[in-house]
């Protein structure tokens, strides 16, 4: 659809995408790793591709790099067709840099020679290598061999090596997964700055949502070989396009609601809807209620009143505490309480109040045809890791 548009705009007016992918498909036997995928990376942009393990992220990168051939669809890099419709440019002529998960430094070459590898006949070779060594702050380690470097240093050398020939785009495959937690946070910042400084477009895939949200100018959420949503991080979080995106990025409660145009009525009262999908829809829907959308107040001891929720479990995240709560009708939710609220215990009764927020809702009839919506969790939240669960409410009292 979009390439029709591009075709009518005069060439001079458009700046070619760094990478454009359309209808890309790759299957291994009966397993479809990439399934009719579309993607657009703008020049200088950092795009993070976020998805669960096995969603086809790495295959996508390898298809762009030319390390695998697509079954269908096309890939353009810097406005040049490199795969699809009869063209198959080999990886060495694609002007793509790649940072591998294990870094894949050449073990027989020094740091300097690793970085210089792609610069063969370049007369400014030494200048460029020096420049990159300064960029990654490893000038003193230039003569060292890869096995003498720490994981973080190897990571930076791998990035410099990929950037050296000034590629149109750098692909990073789970670039931080082999580093320990403390190093990871620091290197995220480093890598972002290095990529910014070199003004190179980058695509990196990760299954870590923190990484995707902090590093990407845009986040593309990928599931089962397709991109579900591709937007700036705050939009992906605030206006998820599908129930899957809502529950995969951050924690979301999908709460039954009745749509009335731009307003949804939930059991907590009405909430304003945002986003392009907030049209004059009517009827039953699931509204996304984030844990921070609800205020938690403790209900004093005594006979349980009809509207009270019971605390089932607790998860401490550092900045705040998440509680799983259950209603008398069996609906379960995740709610958030800051440290100001007295620490609740499992079995405590609380009441919930919706704050003045905007959110999105998914009409239920649409969900029927939605390929990826986790309808089965209609009334429960699915946090990414299990909390300490209390026994069923019947047993606690």
């Amino acid at each position: 659809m979009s390439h029709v548009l591009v075709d009518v705009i005069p060439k001079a007016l458009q700046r070619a995408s760094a990478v454009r992918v359309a209808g890309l498909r790759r299957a291994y036997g009966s397993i479809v790793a990439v399934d009719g995928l579309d993607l657009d990376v703008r020049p200088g942009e950092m795009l993070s591709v976020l998805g669960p393990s096995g969603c086809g992220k790495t295959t996508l990168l390898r298809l762009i790099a030319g390390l695998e051939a697509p079954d269908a669809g096309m890939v353009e890099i810097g406005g040049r067709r490199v795969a699809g419709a009869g063209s198959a440019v080999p990886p060495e002529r694609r002007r793509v840099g790649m940072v591998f998960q294990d870094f894949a430094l050449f073990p027989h070459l020094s740091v300097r020679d690793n970085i210089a590898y792609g610069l063969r006949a370049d007369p400014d070779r030494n200048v460029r290598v020096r420049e990159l060594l300064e960029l990654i702050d490893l000038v003193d380690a230039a003569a060292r061999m890869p096995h003498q470097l720490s994981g973080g240093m190897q990571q930076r050398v791998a990035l410099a090596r990929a950037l050296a020939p000034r590629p149109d785009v750098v692909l990073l495959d789970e670039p931080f997964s082999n580093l320990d937690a403390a190093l990871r946070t620091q290197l995220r910042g480093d890598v972002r700055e290095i990529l910014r400084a070199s003004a190179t477009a980058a695509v990196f895939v990760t299954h870590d949502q923190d990484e995707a949200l902090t590093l990407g100018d845009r986040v593309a959420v990928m599931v089962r070989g397709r991109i579900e949503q591709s937007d700036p991080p705050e939009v992906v979080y605030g206006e998820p396009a599908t129930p899957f995106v809502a529950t995969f990025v951050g924690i979301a409660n999908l709460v039954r609601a009745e749509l009335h145009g731009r307003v949804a009525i939930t059991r907590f009262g009405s909430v304003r809807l945002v986003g392009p999908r907030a049209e004059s829809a009517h009827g039953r829907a699931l509204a996304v209620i984030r844990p921070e959308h609800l205020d938690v107040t403790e209900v004093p001891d005594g006979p349980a009143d009809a509207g009270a929720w019971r605390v089932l479990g607790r998860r401490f995240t550092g900045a705040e505490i998440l509680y799983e709560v259950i209603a008398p009708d069996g609906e379960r939710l995740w709610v958030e309480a800051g440290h100001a609220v007295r620490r609740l215990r499992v079995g405590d009764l609380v009441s919930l109040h919706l704050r003045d927020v905007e959110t999105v809702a998914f009409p239920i009839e649409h969900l029927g045809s939605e390929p990826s919506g986790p309808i089965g969790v209609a009334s429960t939240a699915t946090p990414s890791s299990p909390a300490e669960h209390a026994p069923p409410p019947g047993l606690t009292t």
Partner: protein
Amino acid sequence: MLGVESLRRGRPGRPPRDGGRGAPAVTAPGAPLPLLVACLLIAGLALLPVAYLMVRAVGADVAALDLVLRPRTFQVAASTVALALLVGGGTIVVGVPLAWLTTRTDLPGRRLWAVLVAVPLAIPSYVIGFAFIAAFGPRGALQGMLAPLGVERLPSIGGLFGATLVLVLAAYPYVLLSTRAALLQTDPAAEEAARLLGDRRLTVFRRVTLPILIPAIAAGGLLAVLYALADFGAVSLLQFDSFSRAIYVQYRASFDRALAAILALMLIALTLLVTWGEGRLRRRAGAYAGPVRASRRPATVVPLGRWRWPALAFCSTVVLLALAIPTGTIAWWLVRGVSQGAILRFAADGALNSFTVGAAAAIGSVVLVVPVALLVARYPSRLATIIERATFTGYALPGIVIALAVVFIATSSVPLLYQTLALLVIAYAVRFLPQAVGSVRTALVGVGPRLEEAGRTLGDGPVRAFLQLTLPLLRPALVAGGALVFLTTVKELPMALLLGPIGFDTLATEIWGAASEGFYARAAAPAAILVALSAGTVALLLRAEERPR
């Protein structure tokens, strides 16, 4: 079996890289004295032959220096170096393509070839040597087949050519296995990275794949060189005067101890030089390999296309020369011998003797290995490392040298032991001990000291806790180590030749004796038994390779 241990488990003597589980017990900060004393005695026993040769050489008078400078000595040295270099080069030419074909290509029947080309690893050089003489020698099988045409004698296949051919066929598996390991351990992503940086497939091979493999190839080549330096069986059958044959001839012909000892020391020097180089290269190869992570992809398979025909021809030729011709020749002479009523009794006697010595040596080395492995695994220290290294010295040196030194020591210090079975068994147990150390040490690190500590809190004494709790868990490792010692002992030639009691023939000495006198039919039966045992050895080694390290 020289060097196989180092292929499988890294360099001998490197301290174990264990995690917290193998940490020394809190209750026993230092090694118990009896354990330390036992280990020192074992190390001393292992060092004795080399030490003795050193002392003798230092004590030799000025006339000894003349011996070193004799033209004859130079001649032997030059022959040995020439043979070693040719074998090193030849094994690389044969082993590297085989390694690549069986790991990275779509060669038809790749898995079967991978096993077939590795089998010659365990066939002793003198069996291959015997087979080649008995097939292509002046009065070999080929001459027998050509006899109706009036061919009465074929030209000799001995000398440098024959020795090189036989030793290349016996030793190329060292290069093959070393290169294979490197190919399997190299991260294929490095090759992909090179392509993304602008290199075509062939350029990637030249700039990345090959340089990464070179240390492993060279280290394998040097193992083959060590094999050639240490070999006694093939060079003596093919009558090529390298150091080991010269030492033997010198010793047998004139009982000239001084010259034999000096030749032996020159051989030791050469061996140590090569061992040092091999160790350096092996370490570099290890650094290139890097850790194997779960996220690593398997290497892409290179389609051979039309090249699969020459590739198949190459593999077939190697298997024909290294496996089919030896086994075929042995079978031919076996059938001929039986049909002519030759006696298989020799083989039965030899087999019984070999098995007796092998079993005794296996038990002996298993008894000796437990204290050494215990010290190294549980009480790692500088001294423990030195002791472990010491046990490796005898193993790293040519058998003929050790045999000679043991003969000297026995005749001059303990004549009662000279030419007894006991001496032969002790010599074997000490020399092949290192083969068992690796597996037992790994097993001990895996078991850890916690079980014994639990036993101690439940009222066991330290010895009882070890015997009751740890030892049963070590049994698989002890059995595997013992089996390896058994198989190696059964195939060993020079020590059996020099140290065995008079009239005591093992399979090895029977083959060697019969083959050197031209009684090919008589050598065939014991050779057949040894080839069968070799297949068992390879199976054992491959199983050990599959086990997680």
